[in-house]
């Protein structure tokens, strides 16, 4: 069994204020803080590449865990905003910058907000199928590369960040390590144009994405719980992709969840796409009282996926 052995993140220091854009977009502070839920958005430096963000996340991981590159057998990057034109793949660039072993498999996953959940399953399955004991799953999807600063729908929402999750073989020495299980996946490609990148510019149909998330996520969560013989009461925390405060609150209300079971941290980050789940997990997984967490990522594709983390 493959378990989570550590998570670290990189969030750029620059946090671009939304409050300064009130007049430009005809919105007030209440709307920005209490509805969108983003006071400022993390913004990478112009010359900072996706791979650079991954490397910085790894350096943070080195400080937290006993991870050693020579043990790493696979290195996976989830991104849809790769370095340059995507060739070579960003995971290969990261492999080079970290000077990882030649025996290490490196590949990218092209997914957005569902990417971390898909990524956990892909990484764990790949490692199990190939007898691997240690692997790294990165998420790094800096949307600042493709956002039009005049687009109110997106510029107030998305932030840049990266994460890395160390995955390893379960051992007797780590009984409290988190085990991913109960994966559910879904796609709705025919509605994919609700969130697309055309000619290097992001377009998002806010209403379509809201409708999608508000309807499919509760249904998939229920499906997952039933498949595992569980109820909402058996889940310590429901960790939703941090799309916006509004969608998180909407999901909480539609699913009748108490606020204390639905954590959120996007106020000074923004929506960091596939990094939103692992960055939130990094904060909460250390809490010793937690035993069972439900993750749900949803967005571009349209794509959504949910799973449990148990220990």
């Amino acid at each position, binding site marked *: 069994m493959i378990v989570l052995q550590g998570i670290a993140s990189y969030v750029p220091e620059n946090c671009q204020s939304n409050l300064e854009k009130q007049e430009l977009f005809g919105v007030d502070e209440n*709307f920005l803080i209490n*509805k969108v839920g983003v006071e400022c958005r993390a913004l990478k430096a112009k010359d900072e590449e996706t791979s650079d963000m991954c490397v910085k996340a790894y350096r943070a991981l080195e400080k937290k865990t006993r991870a050693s590159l020579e043990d790493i057998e696979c290195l996976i990057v989830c991104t849809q905003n790769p370095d340059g034109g995507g060739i070579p793949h960003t995971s290969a660039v990261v492999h080079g910058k970290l000077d990882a072993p030649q025996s290490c498999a490196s590949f990218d996953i092209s997914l957005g907000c569902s990417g971390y959940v898909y990524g956990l399953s892909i990484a764990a399955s790949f490692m199990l199928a190939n007898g691997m004991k240690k692997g790294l799953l990165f998420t790094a999807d800096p949307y600042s590369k493709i956002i039009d600063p005049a687009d109110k729908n997106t510029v107030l929402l998305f932030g840049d960040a990266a994460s890395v999750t160390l995955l390893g073989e379960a051992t007797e020495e780590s009984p409290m390590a988190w085990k991913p299980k109960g994966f559910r996946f879904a796609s709705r490609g025919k509605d994919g144009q609700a969130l697309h990148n055309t000619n290097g510019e992001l377009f998002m*149909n806010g*209403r379509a994405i*809201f*409708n999608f998330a*508000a309807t499919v996520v509760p249904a998939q969560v229920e499906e997952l719980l039933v498949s595992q013989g569980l109820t909402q009461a058996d889940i310590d925390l429901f960790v939703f992709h941090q799309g916006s405060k509004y969608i998180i609150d909407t999901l909480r209300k539609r699913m009748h969840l108490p606020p204390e079971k639905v954590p959120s941290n996007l106020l000074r980050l923004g929506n960091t796409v596939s990094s939103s789940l692992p960055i939130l997990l990094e904060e909460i997984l250390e809490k010793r009282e937690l035993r069972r967490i439900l993750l749900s990522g949803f967005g571009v594709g349209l794509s959504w996926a949910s799973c449990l983390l148990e220990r």
Partner: protein
Amino acid sequence: MADIRNEVIDIINKVCDTLQLEPEHYSMPLRDVGVDSLDLSSILLELEEHFNIGIPEDDVEKLATIDRIVEYVTVQKGRE
């Protein structure tokens, strides 16, 4: 139509729980009543689910006031 009006008001009150709607608000632009763009997305979804109708994107601009929403839903239900 009175029933549909009451149901529409209930939906708006449920979504925008700090509003205190009065009859004089029904003909006012929704934004002036305190309904923002995110609220409107929620209201439209609740209307679609409650009344079992679809509200195409092209029709949204017609729904500028509560009165217009009531008229729209009434027409949609009348087509069933």
